[in-house]
């Protein structure tokens, strides 16, 4: 259906995933592949940058739920940043902000990881 792109980059010890387009049941496996790659490489500190994400479905939300536990068990986390209001509302409705950290800016999220790393 709609286009979806995912890009992985490293910012220091933190892995940043850029998601772009429409994340739904059909495109979620692409994002899952990226998370699997991160697990393989033992990269547990993840920031997902939602700057270019236009839509997320329940299947898309499920991807983060599936991996966050493992990340946290390994002293990492999945943090979200640069979310549009419409996308944030979907997360908000479900109660994600209670369980996940949301940041306006990607750097803040990365910074948060680095602070943890220093302490």
């Amino acid at each position: 259906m709609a286009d979806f792109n995912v890009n992985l980059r490293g910012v220091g010890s933190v892995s940043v995933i850029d998601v772009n387009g429409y994340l739904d049941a059909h495109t979620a496996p692409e994002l899952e592949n990226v998370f699997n790659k991160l697990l393989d490489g033992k990269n547990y500190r993840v920031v997902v940058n939602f700057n270019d994400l236009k839509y997320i479905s329940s299947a898309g939300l499920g991807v983060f739920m599936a991996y966050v536990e493992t990340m946290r068990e390994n002293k990492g986390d999945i943090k979200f940043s640069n979310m549009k209001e419409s996308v944030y509302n979907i997360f908000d409705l479900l109660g994600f902000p209670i369980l996940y950290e949301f940041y306006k800016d990607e750097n803040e999220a990365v910074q948060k990881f680095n602070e943890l790393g220093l302490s």
Partner: protein
Amino acid sequence: MSYKNNIRNTTRAKGLENAIIVSILLFLFNLVFPEHDSLLLSLINEVLVFLVLFFVFSYVQPFLSTKIDSPLTLVLNAGILAALIFAIISISNSLFGSFTEEGARLNIFNSLFSIILIFVFIATLIYIFASFRELFFLRQKKDPRIYFNTMQVFFAFTFFSNLLFKIDKNFDYPYEAFYVVSIVLISLNSLRVSWIAFLVKKQKLYLLIISTILSLLFAFNFGLLLSETNTIRQIIVSFSPGLYTIFSLTMIYGVIYFGVIFFTTLFHLPTAEAFDRKAEEASSLMDLTKLITQVFDFKELADSITSTTNKVCNSHSSWLVTKKENEYQLNSVNNISYVEADNLTKILLDTEEVELQRVQTIYFDSVSVELKNEMKEFKSIAIAPLKVHGNINGFLITARYKDVNFDEDEKKSLQAFADYAAVALENAKLIAESIEKERLEKELDVARDIQKKILPDHVPYAKEFQVAALFVPAFEVGGDYYDFFQLDDNKIGFIVADVSGKGISASFIMAEVKGIFESLSKLISNPRELLIKVNDILKNSLDKKSFVTVIYGILNKETGILNFARAGHTPVLLCSGNELERIQPPGIGIGLDYSIGFANTLKEMQIVLKNDDIVAFYSDGIPEAKNAQNEDFGYERFENIILQNKDKSLDEITSVLMHDLTLFSKDHSQHDDITLVLIKWTKKN
């Protein structure tokens, strides 16, 4: 034309009758006139003989045409008959050599014997001649009929020119001229032997031997009757000089024809193997083409590919590997064990992976393999990629013990077979995909069925309030669920839930949610407590990435008090007077958090309904319905519809909403279920 055909058909059809009638005439004629010295009697005799020859020929010839595809049988039959003639001549020479004196022929026994002999000769000659004719026409692209017919005409001329001797012993020029021309024509016609090229090597060798023997046999037959004193010659000549002419011409034809065949076959022998291989290649490609369209089973096709590869490429072992998610899988082996082929493939592909865009040959100093309990060494191996749309899906590999390069032709064949395998593999994949698609559609049917069965078939009725429900399933089954529970005389439970994901897995969770609510709603009268319990129960059946959003409310029809709790679900809309309120008490979706956090977050709300208040429970399918520009239908449109139609009946409100939704997303397929439950408080309080 039709007249001509008509004649031809009757001569053919009545060939046997005619032949028999003329034969009997000839027989009687010879019984009556054993000696025919006068010109007239001779002429009648010759004409009768000619007619017998003609009719027997017309009878035998179409019968032989059925053997057109087996030239060797024709050759062999002609050879047997030539041998028969040889035998008759030899035996009668030794038997009757003693009484060939004048007068002996008057003996009725001798006369009968000679007539029978004559008929045997006629039949044999005609059969041999007809065989030659069939061989002549074999594999001829153009119509060479004129050449053969000309020759036949000259045979006839030669036949009848014998009679001229009766007139004048010295008048032999025409006879000799016709005889020589006939031989020249025989020689020319004997050159049409292109059918030899199409024989396989074995047959060519066989033909080489046979043609030597036959050429000699025909020469003997001709030579034996060359001497004027030969008994058989005397019998034949005295019976009909023309018959002798035909006999000698046929024998000469045999000598020349089989001589030509001998040399042609000899020259064809060196290329026979290459020709065989080409023919094999062509026929196997044809077989494969047939298989490719018929076989759904890739293994079967792979087996035929490896076995033909072995044959056509002159290899000892061949095998086919396909690539599936970067893993190589052995599909078929020919004359090599799976284990050995697997090992070799690994060695080959580890070293050559990068370069394999086209056929390559690889030479090994020694790759030992165990074949049929025998250690062998592969010296050269050729490997061809299975390419479709530029992707390599596997390899076809063929190997030899001999240190002989695979030549260009063999490499081309290998690539051709690899291409076939690639196409077949692609076909098999497409079929599997379409089966999978069909399976998914069946699955969706099941999911839709489950959903239909678990949704209520009517809305509750009470004089204190009205209820209306709208449910529009998405094609893929979105996982929406709504229901009503009569809890006690005064209380009714309302639920709208949305299971994440789609299809059959969502519909199973839906069914489970229904079951849990059916039983727990009667036991736990507090919506918050109930949702906390549901979260606990679903922990065991929801996988990590699934969740359920629920809004659950209990309405007391005595008091008009609505208690509800929301677990990650869309907010409740309350339309009271001219105001519309979006009520979103805190609560996390079920399945997101199984810790105490879920309970801590979840808050219960209570509203007291006033007259004509409308409450809307719904799924995100409404505000998130999309149009062609991928814009959301949104809350505002939804809320406005309720506000503007609040005085109408609930059914009217749902139909207006449905109408507007359909209009909004007319160019966009509905990808999620749409559920709406409206409650209107009508009791004055």
